[in-house]
Structure formats: structure tokens, C-alpha cells
């Protein structure tokens, strides 16, 4: 079955067709989420969310860009949502950690960073990380990144550039 046929069947509620559609792109989706979130389990959760959201919104898929860019765009947005929630949680957690843990202030972000692959990627601001991941690992054009992140092409290009500059400095500092 071609991708178009699978999309048509999936739109009519055929879960097997959707599973077939997803099978060829799920590793890319998972890699994107992993690079953005830096944690395997959270990446799997975000990827699952993205798949479910994609299934529920298949009517909105216009077919022009292809299924993979559309799915990966949803994945990037889900990851950005998670990063936003994580920031809010960490701000709250840091504010109360002293009273909860008797004065010892843990650094969950740093602890998570130490365990995960792509430690340096995790130091980038969320949108820059998303733009860079989509561009370098997924081969998105600036226009596709802009569509996925809901910004202008120029902004997407600047995000990618800023991320590259930051990373180069980080790599130099590490060495």
C-alpha cells in the first residue's frame, strides 16, 4: 500500500493502516524527541503523544508536505510543550526543594543531563534545539522548520544558526 492509500484508510479509522504509516517513521520521530528532551522515557512518551495527536488530526493533513514532515512537526511541538512544562516544574521545584528536602537543593536538570545522550544539545534553548534537530537530523528546510515551529523562515534560520554557534562554543569548552 502506498502512503496515500494508508492515509486514506487511516482517515476512515483504520488503526492498522495508521500503524503501517507510522512504522516507517517512528524511529525518526523517537530520535527527534530524544534529541529534544534528552531522556529516553520522556522521549517515548512524547512520541506516543505525537502519534495519537496525528491520528486524531489526520483530517488536517493536507498531503502536500508528506506524512513524515507533518508527523515530525507534531512531535517537535509536543516536545516544546513538555520542555515548557518542565521549566515551570523546575522553577517550582527549586523554590520548594529547600523546605521539602531539609535544605539540600538537588539539581534534577543537571542529573538528567549527566545520564543522557546529547548532553550538549540539552543546553540549547528549546526552540533552537527543535530547529537544529529538525534541520540537521531530519533534513528539514527552513520553510518546513518554520511551519513546524510556527515562526517565520528567517527566525527558523536564525534559531539554527544561533544553536550551531552555541554548540561550537560548548564543544570548544568541553575540549
Amino acid at each position, binding site marked *: 500500500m502506498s502512503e496515500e492509500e494508508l492515509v486514506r484508510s487511516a482517515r476512515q479509522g483504520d*488503526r492498522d493502516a*495508521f*500503524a503501517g504509516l*507510522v*512504522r516507517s517513521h*517512528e*524511529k*525518526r*520521530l*523517537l*530520535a527527534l524527541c*530524544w*534529541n529534544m528532551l534528552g531522556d529516553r522515557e520522556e522521549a*517515548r512518551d512524547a*512520541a*506516543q*503523544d505525537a*502519534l*495519537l495527536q496525528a*491520528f486524531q488530526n489526520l483530517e488536517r493533513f493536507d498531503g502536500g508536505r508528506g506524512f513524515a514532515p507533518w508527523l515530525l512537526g507534531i512531535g517537535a511541538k509536543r516536545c516544546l510543550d513538555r520542555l515548557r512544562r518542565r521549566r515551570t516544574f523546575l522553577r517550582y521545584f527549586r523554590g520548594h526543594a529547600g523546605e521539602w528536602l531539609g535544605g539540600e537543593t538537588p539539581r534534577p536538570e543537571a542529573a538528567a543531563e549527566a545520564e543522557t*545522550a*546529547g548532553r*550538549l*544539545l540539552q543546553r540549547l534553548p528549546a526552540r533552537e534545539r527543535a530547529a*537544529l*534537530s529538525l534541520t*540537521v*537530523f531530519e533534513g528539514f528546510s*527552513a520553510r518546513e522548520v518554520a511551519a513546524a515551529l510556527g515562526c*517565520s*523562515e*528567517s*527566525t527558523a*534560520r*536564525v534559531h539554527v*544558526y544561533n544553536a*550551531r*554557534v552555541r*554548540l*561550537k562554543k560548548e*564543544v570548544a569548552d568541553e575540549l
Partner: protein
Amino acid sequence: MSCSWVRFAYRALPLAPWRAFLLGRHIDRCPRCQGEALGDAGVRALGLTAADLAGEPPLRPFAAAGGPVRAASPAWRRAFALFLAVAVLGAAAWLSRLIPRQRLPEGTVTVVEEAGGARAFAVLEARIGDAPARPVVFKPGKGGMTIVWFERSAH
């Protein structure tokens, strides 16, 4: 435009789209700025690609929608459910025959006086079956409508 001028403008310009446009146009063409950025190979070395995840278990697209997709229920279960539904409907029909139905009694109304078309009338006698009936008059609003019905008189 020099790199330093573009960077100054990037910081000074108040609107983000303008700044991004300016810098975007510059960095696409400026080898010096591009030299300050990490190339694709360098970035790829820092992250994961789909090929790195070959051993990962597959995702379950519908896990968040209430667990894995359930297998269709077996035929015997569907047949049992059908039998149960038929049995319940049969029992309900049998029970409904046991309950005596309340039939509305037949009544007669004798209107003895009518004046001004249908605007005024008097009811001389009303009976439900053989028993006299009592009229109840209800005027729902100021529209002039009057509803009259009859109830069995309490003896």
C-alpha cells in the same frame, strides 16, 4: 554589510522578525559567520539519528488512548450478549401483560347554554361513566384561553 554591523542591528532592532530577516540574510552569505557555527557533522555527533535507535522497541500508537488495541470479542461472547438481550426483552414484554392497563373512562359533557359564539358557555352536567364529574377550570394566561377538564367527584 559587515558582521559587526549586522550583530549591532540584531541587538538594537526592536522587532524580532526584522532582526531575524537581517541576520538570516547575512549568515547565509557570510563565510566568517558560518565559520563560527558548528557544521552538520559536528552536530550529528552530538545527537541521535534513527539509525542509532535500531534496537528500540516499537512505539504503540494508541497506547495513550486506553491501552493496546483490543482483539475483537469472540463469537460465543457476542452470541451470549444477543441471547441475554432477547431474554430481557421477552421478560419485559411478559411482565407488561401482567400489569393491568389503566383505561381512560368515557365521559359525557352536556353543554346547555352557548352565547356569543364560543365565547361563553355553561356546563349543566358532566359524568364520567355513571358517576358525576367535577369541572376544573384553568386559565393559563391573559390570552383568553380557558381549559376545562373533568375529574371524578369524590363521594
